[in-house]
């Protein structure tokens, strides 16, 4: 029997698998950096929206609905291709020039490409607005009566937050938060449109070089499954611990 036409010339050569693995590593690294930044920003946004101060509430609220209600793809395109119109030439030039920082023990930190920076920024802002909503929902689950009871016991506001609210809220938001982190992994795929060499980008690269579309997409899909399900498993195993980024 002849090999099926759509399978083309057999399986992917090892170095193409290497490209895809490299893409998966880029996806993981980007997702990790985005998750960290988005969590921090999400906490700030949540606190601001919880604040009685109008000057804090409205900007944070506006930020969140602005980012939640526009497609991520459009935000990514806007940040990357629109940056030239937003930022002064000097800033663009500085951002585009490679910088290097020497670290102890002979390591050095390379300045990321502008594609990477734009992707990181767009994804972080987008994800932060969702994470802040999950955090708010989690804090709201702790019944008001408990806080009153704690106050009656003479606990300070900080103690109430630390020992009463936080432990319960963390338990409630762990799953939704984990969901947000897996969403970040999947959302990194959109950055292929601005040339970030993540997994979807490399899968199309392998496809255009080998013309083995089926194989390239199959391996990429499998790697996404591994990354996402791995994150889910790692997250749910961490009993009672703080959610990992």
């Amino acid at each position, binding site marked *: 029997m002849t090999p099926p036409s759509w399978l083309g010339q057999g399986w992917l050569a090892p170095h193409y698998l290497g490209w895809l693995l490299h893409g998966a590593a880029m996806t993981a690294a980007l997702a990790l950096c985005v998750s960290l930044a988005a969590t921090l920003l999400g906490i700030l946004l949540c606190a601001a929206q919880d604040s009685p101060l109008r000057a804090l509430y409205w900007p944070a609220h506006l930020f969140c609905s602005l980012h939640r209600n526009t497609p991520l793809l459009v935000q990514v395109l806007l940040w990357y291709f629109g940056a030239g119109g937003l930022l002064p030439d000097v800033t663009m030039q500085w951002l585009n020039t490679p910088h290097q920082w020497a670290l102890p023990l002979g390591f050095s930190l390379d300045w990321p490409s502008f594609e990477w920076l734009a992707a990181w920024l767009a994804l972080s802002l987008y994800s932060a607005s969702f994470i802040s909503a999950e955090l708010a929902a989690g804090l709201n689950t702790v019944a008001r009566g408990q806080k009153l009871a704690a106050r009656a016991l003479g606990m300070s506001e900080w103690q109430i937050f630390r020992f009463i609210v936080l432990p319960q809220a963390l338990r409630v938001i762990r799953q939704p938060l984990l969901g947000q982190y897996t969403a970040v992994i999947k959302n990194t795929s959109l950055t292929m449109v601005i040339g970030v060499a993540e997994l979807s980008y490399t899968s199309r*690269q392998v496809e255009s070089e080998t013309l083995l579309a089926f194989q390239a997409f199959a391996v990429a899909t499998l790697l996404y499954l591994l990354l996402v399900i791995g994150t889910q498993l790692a997250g749910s195993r961490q009993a009672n611990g703080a959610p990992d980024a």
Partner: protein
Amino acid sequence: MKTPSLLLALTLLGTAGHALADRLDDIKKAGVLRVAAFDSNPPFGFLDAKTHQISGLDVEVAQAIASKLKVKLELVPTNPANRIPLLVAGKADLVAANFTVTEERKKQVDFSLPYFASGQQFIARKGSLSKPEQLAGLRVGVDKGTTQEIYLREKYSKTTVVAYDDTPLAFTALRNGNVQAISQDGSKLAALLANAPDKAKYELAPFTLTREYQAIGLPKGEARLTKVVNETLLELEKSGQAHKIYDRWFGPGTKAPLPRDFKIGDAV
């Protein structure tokens, strides 16, 4: 190993549908020829500002084929990377999108006689790029899934290749300084530059890397369809129509004039 048997089953399903069909009959029966053409690459295929229809040199060649078959032309907008998938998935009957003939692509699709020839060139800021050696260390923007992308990655390993969905997007990255040059077919770049509002800042680098031939892409094994396409192309050349089409987009009166140094039938 479960996967291979599943794949095998899917294949049997897949091939059964394809084996008997002849695309030429299908096209005539449907009365429609579906051609994948560029929508963002003047003058080959682009969205006309007034009519909002895709037009250009490739589209006129496609129209000639449709007229020869006496069917209606339906254009499927494509970017470079989607050309082969569109053809292989049967979403288009032909590709007329500045499609360069390569040995690698011949394994997946068939090509007609070439109807255009050009070479890989670069756009950079004025005075910043004058010879190929300068490419080392530069970041160069290309289109995903093009011969230029593959050629640069293979032959210029010190150049960082960044691939975008389409040439105008790559040009935007050049404007923003994200890449220092962009690479495509010389003819395509000349036209892109001619249409750029800020063309004074950029130039076509004065060297060409390769000689490439562009042809109509066809699904594999459609001998009758290929024959009709080739006949149409040769007739276009013989009647002088091919030259007229060329002049309409690259002639002396156009924005980016380019002398015609290739005739249909010159290369196979």
